[in-house]
């Protein structure tokens, strides 16, 4: 082709390639920043302290830098959320896929997805102003700030993650499997749990992993409703702090920029990033490996 056309085409292609490279730069940026600043932190605080100290009090005069309280807060709220979301989400997915009429599903599925679209501040408000008072009536002596309320609300928020992806996975299972099961006289329940779910297991696992990742990274619901006291506890009735809310708390305060206290957000952030990074990659590879299973 004529030279100016070829040059123009190549130029445009290079420009677009650079745009797609922005995503790579973003990842590199995140990893670099977290790692470099965390290294500076670990120059002053030994990693063994970080991993084993049971107190996290960088902002107090008696400073402890153990990540365990923040980790326990994160894991506690996440666990409550998952315990709510996975059974509920799966059962709803099975119902929509196996029992409900297509019209019912077509109406209900988008409504459930609304749950995922609601901004998290709204959920935080709901947790603090509706769920906590309600729980306090049921559980006397419950703190105004506790882990249970935001955990439950997070669970509700995550249901569509489980339901949507699991229902898609169930729908992708070939009809022939389901028909073979019915053909032997199995009920819907038996078909769903003995045939469909095992066949769709990889998709369902992916949905759970993604839901966990989402819960780990949640900030505002916990920031509003869980209180902000880092405690090493697995008691849902206590107030806790998660890694995410700690980061926000420090950023909103007036901690001087190059102080050790400031650097704690990078150490905490790195910890969180490692968890979600591993989870996201696992789910990506599980999805890729089983994508072509039935093709």
């Amino acid at each position, binding site marked *: 082709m004529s030279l100016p056309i070829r040059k123009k*085409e190549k130029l*445009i*292609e290079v420009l*677009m390639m650079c*745009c*797609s490279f*922005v*995503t*790579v730069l*973003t*990842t590199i940026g*995140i990893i670099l*920043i*977290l790692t470099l600043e965390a290294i500076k932190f670990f120059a002053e605080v030994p990693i063994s302290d970080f991993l084993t100290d049971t107190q996290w009090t960088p902002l107090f005069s008696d400073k402890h830098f153990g990540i365990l309280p923040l980790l326990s807060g994160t894991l506690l709220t996440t666990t409550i959320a998952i315990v709510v979301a996975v059974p*509920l989400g799966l*059962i*709803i997915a*099975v*119902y929509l896929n196996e*029992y*409900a009429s297509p019209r019912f599903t077509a109406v*209900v599925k988008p*409504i*459930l997805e*609304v749950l995922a*679209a*609601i*901004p*998290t*501040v*709204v959920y*935080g*408000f709901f947790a*603090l*102003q509706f769920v906590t008072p309600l729980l306090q009536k049921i559980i006397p002596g419950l703190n105004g700030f506790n882990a249970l309320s935001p955990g439950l609300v997070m669970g*509700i928020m995550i249901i569509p993650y489980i339901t949507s992806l699991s229902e898609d996975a169930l729908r992708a299972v070939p009809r022939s499997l389901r028909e073979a099961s019915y053909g032997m006289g199995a*009920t*819907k*329940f038996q078909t769903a749990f003995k045939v469909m779910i095992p066949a769709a297991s990889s998709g369902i696992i992916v949905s759970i992993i993604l839901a966990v*990742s989402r819960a780990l*990274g*949640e*900030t*505002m619901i916990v920031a*509003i409703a869980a209180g902000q006291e880092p405690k090493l506890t697995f008691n849902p009735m206590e107030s806790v702090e998660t890694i*995410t809310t700690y*980061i*926000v708390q420090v*950023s*909103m305060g007036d901690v001087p*920029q190059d102080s050790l206290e400031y650097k704690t*957000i990078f150490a905490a*952030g790195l910890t*969180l*990033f490692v968890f*979600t*990074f591993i989870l*996201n*990659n696992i789910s*990506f590879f599980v999805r890729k490996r089983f994508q072509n299973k039935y093709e």
Partner: protein
Amino acid sequence: MNTRNYSRGKLTDKVFKYTALTFTLFALAILVILLVDIFSKGLARINWDFFRNLPSRHANRSGIMTAMAGMLSLLFFTIIIALPIGILAGVYLQEYGKKNRFASFIEINIANLAGVPSVIYGILGLTLFVRILHMGNSLIAGAFTLALLIMPIIIVATREAIKAVPNSLREASYGMGATKWQTTSKVVIPSALGGILTGIILAISRAIGETAPLLVIGALVYVPFIPEGPNDQFTTLPIQIFNWTSRPQADFIINAAAGIIVLLLITFLLNGIAIYIRNKWYKKIKY
């Protein structure tokens, strides 16, 4: 035939069916309860003053003007940064990308970025934009941060939209002697526009609701002025709601509820438009 087992199976089936239906309705009910609770708490507060007023120490004189101004300005800058880069990246990856290792590496990368917690984007923005690039805790720093956050959404939506364009259209264009960029820009992208637009709107909807990363980069919680330029400090509606929710006084709680109503209306409106556009476009392209 073992009829006893058969009827027990049927019983389990029925029990499960009604339990599952209950769960489904329960999930829907929670949504309804949430909406009803918030609307009942905040609806009365909504009037023109609520929109026009700046925040104030007195709850009944506080309004969302600066929050709305901040949010809209932030959105504007976020979009003009994220849109061109995201769409071009999506076009490149789907239309030009060869099936090589580089391409799959980028694919993994994007899937990863989509799952990174939003506070981490906040830390990235804080260090890179606010400090290293000296943007301060300004609108523009917030815009860059949010742009990076929503970029995977735009890229994935663009790729899906372009994938849906039938190959026969490309063949028709090449058959007439068009170059790759001519075909891409004059046939493929216009045909994919509906899907791309849907992705943009969903990305906007996501950006509107984001709070944590903006708090990390230093968006202010109490801003008694309207930002005038990209270098100004700012606040947004979710942050304003967060502020009010954190106050113990009952009047501020009402304000928070009212603010949430506005936020939800905007969010639902955007999502509704996105779904409408996607349906119309999808019918058009699958002729």
